[in-house]
């Protein structure tokens, strides 16, 4: 019954979305306030409806209702509760429902928190959100319905892929989707502004928090996925330039460009047309990502949606939304008045450089991802575009980005003093050189590129700190005064410093991967292998039962100079139901390096394959991403964004102007 109610709620949500798409748009056109306000009510109704549908599916999973096909295919009574719940989005239908849930969440949030928007703008934004909702709800209801019942319910389900039964992966999709779908808000704002024909500082001020929040969620989502790959795959790979990873990375790059260019619109009234375009591109890339993953167009094993009707449907959605918005852009963008002028060397100039490089980076990733498909379609030889391509084309684009991150914030708006900025960065430069030289010394002339990367990371980090220290006049005035300045500094400034620091931390972690050590051997019980300065001893391997698997649990002792450094337990887990084995690596994380041990297969003579790695600074990659997202959230908490502040400021300005007359 509940399942049917969920299905029914989803159909109702579709009807409400149709209403939300049409009525407010007409209202904004005819200047009819009653019609405009329908958008708000519809969005506020749509969210509980979709949430109920989501809850209904979740309920079916929790009680293991094997009359629902989706539950049969992806669940099992033996599965721990957490994975019963997260199994909801571990499959095509459920993950599309999650997508729509996030969309309804964003729509509801816009309706709730944007009371200060001009009614016409709010109506149009919600209408665009409604249109996206119509498309995706129709997609779910027509081609991917998770509520279908089975004619002959089996006794038990097929279970979830054991590899997905992992906390890291359980929460990775919600964050990722919140990021993807969150950019629909900035997209809706962009389209609304194009219909309206007006973009101003207030528009940027409204759109930026949404873009920033989505960006934070996407950052966390990507980091989680990468971290999961690191500890699961058994050899510590964390990024593969796989099409599905690229699908999440492209919107991230474009979104990063967007949150920077929106600053220029807000502060300087320039780059308006470009920012609109970026908002459209960012969400389009999210849609392309969804298309790539869901349609099965990749010749990849990801294509768990191999049904061509689904592919066609998503393709149509893609053409309608991207084509429609870009056409609107082509028609309306020339009429957007461009605002403030600026010299090439200025804060705006630096942000333009950031946008130029990030956008080119996103285009490079898109090209590399789609090129094999393209060649395949035009009938050329099959081609592979793998990590070496991206390392050669994408990485060089990011080097100048990092070089500019430190200098940009030190430049003044309109016309900056590059020499002055660089002079103030001498400390950062010295640190970068020092780190590079120390790196060369410690690794006795190790890989040059990695050392360059470490130097750049030091430069970026110190650059961010120097800028922050200048703002609060650290060491120039009394510490108490500096503290006061720090307290009064806008949260957005603290957020920027944190986010740039996070970037530096991640870059350092990535660069340091070049220095990792690997040791791979067949080891008998009691024997040892040498890894860097560590002695790794396999003490024993025991069989242990788990909830829905049996594990071979190894006890491995790591010693340095005879002193015990760590006792670790890598496992191999065998899942009876799926006849599948997974590797549970044992990782000892410390600030400076990870010890990473995976247990491989046993051989006939009682030996076990042991893969042991020493990975310096590796955890910095994900820690840096978290710091970046945290910086974004600190920036988001800036009181200037809060509802009503801008409106009140305008009101005060009006009152003052009136008093002055």
């Amino acid at each position: 019954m509940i399942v049917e109610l969920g299905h029914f709620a989803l159909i109702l949500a579709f009807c409400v979305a149709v209403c939300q798409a049409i009525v407010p748009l007409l209202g904004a056109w005819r200047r009819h306030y009653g019609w405009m306000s329908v958008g708000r009510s519809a969005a506020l109704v749509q969210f509980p409806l979709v949430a109920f549908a989501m809850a209904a599916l979740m309920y079916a999973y929790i009680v293991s209702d094997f009359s629902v096909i989706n539950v049969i295919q992806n669940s099992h009574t033996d599965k721990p509760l957490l994975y019963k719940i997260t199994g909801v989005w571990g499959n095509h239908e459920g993950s599309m429902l999650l997508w729509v849930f996030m969309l309804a969440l964003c729509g509801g949030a816009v309706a709730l928190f944007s009371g200060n928007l001009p009614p016409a703008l709010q109506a149009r934004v919600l209408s665009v959100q409604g249109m996206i909702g119509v498309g995706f709800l129709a997609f779910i209801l027509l081609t991917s319905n998770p509520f279908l019942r089975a004619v002959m319910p089996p006794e038990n389900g097929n279970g979830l892929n054991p590899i997905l039964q992992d906390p890291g992966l359980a929460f990775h999709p919600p964050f990722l989707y919140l990021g993807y779908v969150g950019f629909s808000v900035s997209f809706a704002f962009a389209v609304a502004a194009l219909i309206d024909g007006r973009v101003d500082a207030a528009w940027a001020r409204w759109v930026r928090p949404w873009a920033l929040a989505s960006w934070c969620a996407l950052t966390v989502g990507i980091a989680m996925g990468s971290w999961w790959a690191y500890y699961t795959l058994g050899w510590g790979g964390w990024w593969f330039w796989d099409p599905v990873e690229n699908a999440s990375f492209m919107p991230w790059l474009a979104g990063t460009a967007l949150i920077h260019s929106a600053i220029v619109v807000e502060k300087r009234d320039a780059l308006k047309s470009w920012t609109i375009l970026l908002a459209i591109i960012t969400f389009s890339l999210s849609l392309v990502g969804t298309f790539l993953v869901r349609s099965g167009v990749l010749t990849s094993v990801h294509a768990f949606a191999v049904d061509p009707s689904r592919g066609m449907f998503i393709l149509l959605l893609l053409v309608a939304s991207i084509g429609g918005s870009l056409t609107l852009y082509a028609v309306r963008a020339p009429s957007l008045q461009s605002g403030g002028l600026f010299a090439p060397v200025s804060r705006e100039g630096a942000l333009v450089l950031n946008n130029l490089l990030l956008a080119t980076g996103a285009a490079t990733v898109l090209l590399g991802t789609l090129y094999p498909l393209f060649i395949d379609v035009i009938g050329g030889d099959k081609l592979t575009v793998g990590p070496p391509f991206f390392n050669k084309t994408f990485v060089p684009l990011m080097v100048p980005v990092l070089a500019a991150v430190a200098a940009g914030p030190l430049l003044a708006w309109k016309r900056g003093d590059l020499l002055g900025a660089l002079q103030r960065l001498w400390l950062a430069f010295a640190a970068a050189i020092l780190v590079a030289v120390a790196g060369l010394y410690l690794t006795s002339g190790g890989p040059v590129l990695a050392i360059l990367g470490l130097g750049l990371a030091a430069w970026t980090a110190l650059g961010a700190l120097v800028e922050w220290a200048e703002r609060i006049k650290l060491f120039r005035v009394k510490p108490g005064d500096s503290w006061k300045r720090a307290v009064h500094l806008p949260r957005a400034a603290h957020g920027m410093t944190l986010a740039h620091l996070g970037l530096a931390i991640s870059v350092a972690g990535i660069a340091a991967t070049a220095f990792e050590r690997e040791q791979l051997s067949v080891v008998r019980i009691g024997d040892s292998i040498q890894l860097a300065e560590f002695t790794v001893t396999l003490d024993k391997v025991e069989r242990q039962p788990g909830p829905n698997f049996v594990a071979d649990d190894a006890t491995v002792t790591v010693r340095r100079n005879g002193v015990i450094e760590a006792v670790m337990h890598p496992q191999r887990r065998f899942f009876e139901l799926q006849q599948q084995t997974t590797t549970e690596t044992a990782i000892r994380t410390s600030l400076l390096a990870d010890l990473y041990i995976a247990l491989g297969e046993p051989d006939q003579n009682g030996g076990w394959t042991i893969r042991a790695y020493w990975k310096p600074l590796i955890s910095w990659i994900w820690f840096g991403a978290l710091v970046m997202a945290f910086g974004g959230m600190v920036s988001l908490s800036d009181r200037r964004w809060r509802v009503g502040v801008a409106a009140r400021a305008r009101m005060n300005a009006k009152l003052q102007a009136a008093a002055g007359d």
Partner: protein
Amino acid sequence: MKRFAAALLLALSFAGGASAVEPTERLSDPALESRARAISQGLRCLVCQNESIDESGADLAHDVRVLLRERIAAGDSDDKATAFIVSRYGDFVLLNPPVKPATYVLWFGPPALLVIAMGGLILGRRRRAAAQEVPLSADERQALARLMQESEQ
């Protein structure tokens, strides 16, 4: 479900958990072995999605690794050993796509895009600067002078 690649790949291609180079495959000469590792990082496991044979535990990846090591041990240079593998499996096996007419767009697209975008920016600036520098007309100058006078009074 971004990491589905690796997930399904693991699930489909081998039941032995994550593994790549097996201890038994390795060449005894560390110099030769490290050359083989470097080459195999650039060769695709054909039955997997976007994984090198160095990373993949699929049977085919194992076979190619062994084949490659045979060639290296037989004294082939890096290029010759790679060419041998390519002759058997085609360009598809190269994770690093070769530069040839069919891939010009791929390889030169990104730098070309950067150059075009930069050129567009510079042109746009020039045009806007030119548009800004239109001198005041006689009427405008008069109007300005009048306003200035008014404000002085």
